[in-house]
């Protein structure tokens, strides 16, 4: 029987196995490790802070209920993120935003209110992913976050959103194009591993 003091050094799969046997403290360790990732994903998908935290809690509670389904094929974090992403989609759909997903003509880029000089300044300040995502239209942000943050395939995202696959692909492509422009740095690399990107997220 694993002691509580050994939980922090255990692998996620071992913790999940203990949790499947009813060890809530083992699952608590998983929440400590991956809570921020799930909360961050939900905020990146567009949820308000309080809603994101509520949904993240629901996602972890659902994960505990379904913990025996986690086989360790992928990472625990990816697994629980998928649960959270689906929960957010359900929440989003209940909020009657579905019509927003309808195909719309390619909009012009949002006007730059501060000109090229301001743009260069923003780049110099290293606009991070969170800020870049906020510049996307809501459906684009949702689709990109679902596929890249939530780990859903385009088809899975389309199914979750109950929208045509082509529409999802279109939103993802548009979103990626905008993000690429937004995240481009003058040197063209912007930090090879996303390192150095400032994170200013507060609870």
């Amino acid at each position: 029987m694993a002691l509580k003091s050994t939980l922090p050094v255990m692998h996620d799969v071992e913790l999940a196995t203990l949790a499947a046997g009813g060890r809530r403290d083992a699952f608590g360790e998983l929440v400590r490790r991956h809570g921020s990732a799930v909360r961050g994903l939900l905020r990146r998908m567009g949820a308000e802070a309080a809603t994101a935290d509520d949904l993240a809690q629901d996602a972890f509670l659902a994960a505990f209920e379904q913990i025996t389904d986690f086989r360790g094929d992928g990472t625990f974090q990816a697994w629980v993120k998928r649960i959270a992403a689906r929960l957010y989609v359900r929440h989003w759909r209940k909020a009657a935003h579905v019509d927003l997903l309808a195909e719309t003509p390619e909009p012009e880029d949002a006007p730059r209110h501060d000109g090229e000089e301001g743009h260069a300044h923003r780049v110099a300040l290293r606009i991070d992913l969170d800020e870049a995502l906020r510049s996307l239209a809501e459906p684009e942000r949702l689709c990109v976050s679902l596929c890249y943050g939530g780990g859903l395939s385009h088809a899975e995202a389309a199914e979750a959103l109950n929208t045509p696959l082509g529409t999802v692909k279109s939103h993802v492509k548009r979103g990626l194009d905008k993000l690429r422009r937004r995240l481009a740095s003058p040197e063209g690399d912007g930090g090879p591993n996303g390192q150095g990107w400032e994170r200013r997220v507060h609870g």
Partner: protein
Amino acid sequence: MAEFESRLDRMFAEPPAFEDAGVFAGQVQSKLNRNWTTRRLVIGALGGIGGLIGVGQIVSSGVIGHVQSLAKGAPSLASIDLSHWHGHLNVGLSPATSGAVWLGLAAVGIALALALSRLIEDL
């Protein structure tokens, strides 16, 4: 394109730092504990109710009196000739006294006490 997508994957994989990460984990743990306790209470309560109904059924059916009357008429285990156990098997396996019933009830009581102590521990 693929390079940018890989970079995006990495950026998404990098979790933001939350100042209240510990509070969040504590809230989830509390909800887990609360759900668990509620579930056990419900299961325990249902089991207890079921047990009481079962005991009530046994008592109301007059089985105790029936067993007592059987015990009076049956030979004691000590008087059974074991060399003829084939012929007396049914008698040998039947309760010799009503004590067996009370023993069973005591076992139920102990089980309920154990369940209660676990519930109190959870609370």
